[in-house]
């Protein structure tokens, strides 16, 4: 079996041609419940996967950017899998499950509901919700601001400055954004 990443494994499976309507669960997500070939796998409900993508899109939106195929949810997911400890992964999973259930209980338009869910979650007294959600938020930030698209299109891309100018005016820059390299 190929090593799959956290929820992205499920995203990849969907991308590989499985129509969401035909599958309710995707075989992919790392967790603690079963052990095969050194990794821990479980069936993930497709709905959770869709929810995760939706969540990341609301943390750092990318849909309004022309030609920006940032696949941010996949980045965040891979980063969780490869850079977080098993303990943190379990905490993130639990947090996502909690948010997903809450989301389903909330009434209203999907976008407003998600915005409210995230706002409440980040401010929650419960560290088991606020902490992991903030981790996902920060990973989404990393994925976004360090992406090639953002570096070249939105920031001032300057990989080899060749000099140091100690004083320039932001107001005179074509793009009034920070330097990127």
């Amino acid at each position, binding site marked *: 079996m190929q090593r799959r990443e956290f929820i992205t494994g499920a995203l990849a499976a969907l991308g590989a041609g499985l129509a969401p309507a035909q599958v309710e669960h995707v075989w992919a997500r790392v967790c603690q419940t079963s052990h095969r070939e050194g990794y821990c796998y479980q069936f993930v409900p497709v709905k959770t996967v869709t929810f995760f993508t939706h969540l990341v899109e609301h943390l750092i939106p990318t849909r309004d950017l022309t030609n920006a195929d940032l696949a941010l949810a996949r980045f965040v997911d891979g980063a969780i899998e*490869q850079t977080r400890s098993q303990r943190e992964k379990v905490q993130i999973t639990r947090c996502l499950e909690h948010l997903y259930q809450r989301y389903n209980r909330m009434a209203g338009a999907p976008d407003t509901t998600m915005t409210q869910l995230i706002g409440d979650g980040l*401010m929650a007294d419960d560290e088991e919700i606020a902490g992991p959600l903030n981790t996902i938020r920060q990973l989404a930030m990393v994925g976004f*601001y360090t992406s090639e698209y953002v570096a070249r299109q939105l920031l001032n891309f300057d990989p080899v400055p060749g*000099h140091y100018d100690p004083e320039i005016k932001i107001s005179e820059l074509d793009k009034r954004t920070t330097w990127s390299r």
Partner: protein
Amino acid sequence: MQTFDAIVIGSGITGGWAAKELTEAGLSVVVLERGRYVEHGADYHTAYKHDWQLPNHGLVSNDVKKRLYKQARTGYATNPDIAHWFVDDRQHPYQEQQRFDWIRGYHLGGRSLTWGRQCLRLSDIDFSANRVDGNGNDWPVRYKDIAPWYDKVEAFIGVSGEMMGLEQLPDGIYLPPMPLNRVERHMREVLNRQFNGRALTIGRVAHLIGSGDFGARQPCLYRGRCMRGCPTGGYFSSLSSTLPAARATGRLTIRSNTIASEIIYDEQKQRAIGVRTIDTNNHKKSAVYASVIFCCASAIASTALLLQSKSRRFPNGLGNDSGVLGHYLMDHHFKVGATATTTKFGDSYYQGFRPVGFHIPRFVNLKPREPDSSLDFIRGYGYQGYATRGDWRRGFKELSFGKAFRDDMLKPGPWQVALIGFGETLPGKGNRIYLDETRKDEWGLPTVVFDARFRENEQRMRSHMQSQAVEMLSACGFDNVQAYDEGSYPGQAIHEMGTARMGYDPKTSIVNQYNQVHTVKNVYITDGAFMCSGGYQNPSLTYMAFTARAAAHAVGQFKTGF
């Protein structure tokens, strides 16, 4: 039998210098390097990578965190763009009776590839400090003895900096300084106006700045990616600078993947005759022989090697009649100071990734013979610091999200200012390393145990470092001025030094004023192990100057006989 005129152990900052000086003087030299071979430029495989080309855009993988668990304490050594320059703690274990962050780089070039390049001279305030206050032993050297060697080193490696005319931080031979930005200039004006005797200048760093003829090296391009290795040689490293010079003589042999495990002492000749080695790949043992041996493996590794080199004549380690080998370990203490932000100069920005911040030279206890009665500590400290516009990372601290937040983080944030104090540590016998013969590494060598801590004088100094940082940032009219003390552990400043100190007296020191082991005259220790005290200044420039001076001495002795 493989014989050379000289053996240099280690290829880092000091080993490169020893190799260059000895080969240029006509000696055949073999450099023994325990780490892998690195080709300058070609092997800096992350140098031209963008964030999105790094695994997880540069986030540290869980796997690396586990393997480099001590190096990880730095907060940067595990980053995927540079982790390959730091040792795997599992493969190269050491022990901590008290916490010590031993941050090592085992590869050709050593830590000359990753160093911060700050080059500050010691002054006579530093060279006489031990004598004045009675801590440690007196340096057998004064500034005038080493000044010409500082000149020589700076002229060769290229140091960018500003002449200041300060007694506590002597000027050197400098390439043009990098400019201060708007906020730094403001701070400099405030310090000049309101703080008598305090100065702010740009860091003095080993970067090529200006339009001189730098040979195969090129001026710094302000990419700010130095720790990945600079393929154009914009900053000094052994690989960009000293080893090519040594190689050009045709008298240099480099043996990488070769651990020096023991210096062989010949009782009849009463000198060392060679070095036993272990091939790191196949564990094969061998030996090389030479008339002169330079220990440049870095302070702790050289001392460990001497401790490992036992014989009937030296049962406690080579040259260790005095029993001080392993003692008087020092580092600088830091991670203390203050931070601030300011919305002033809101339209002001800069271009280019300047690879250094500013420096505030020492301003306390400048007359050690007349201690300042308002201070409850001796010796001194300085600050390194920066003033930069915040980038998107400032958003980590906020709990915001969504489109407005996303777009806001694209813009330059308020100026962020930080002062980071670097303070002197008193030399004390209780701060030491020793070997544990019961716990050995993969190559059967005993592991090093650290037993050192910062003590009362350092703690008192830290309070002052904090309060003065707050005072200065407040005087500059900045907002959110906050003192901090993250706590500092020995080793963290990566300026570990001492343990084979220099001195007049063989009964209380290991090497003489020329870095020659008192009792084994053809062995020189020129990495940080010889230091009697550390000042507050980053020390590598001093190691290089002493190495060059010791090499000249060794060449003389080589010709006339030891």
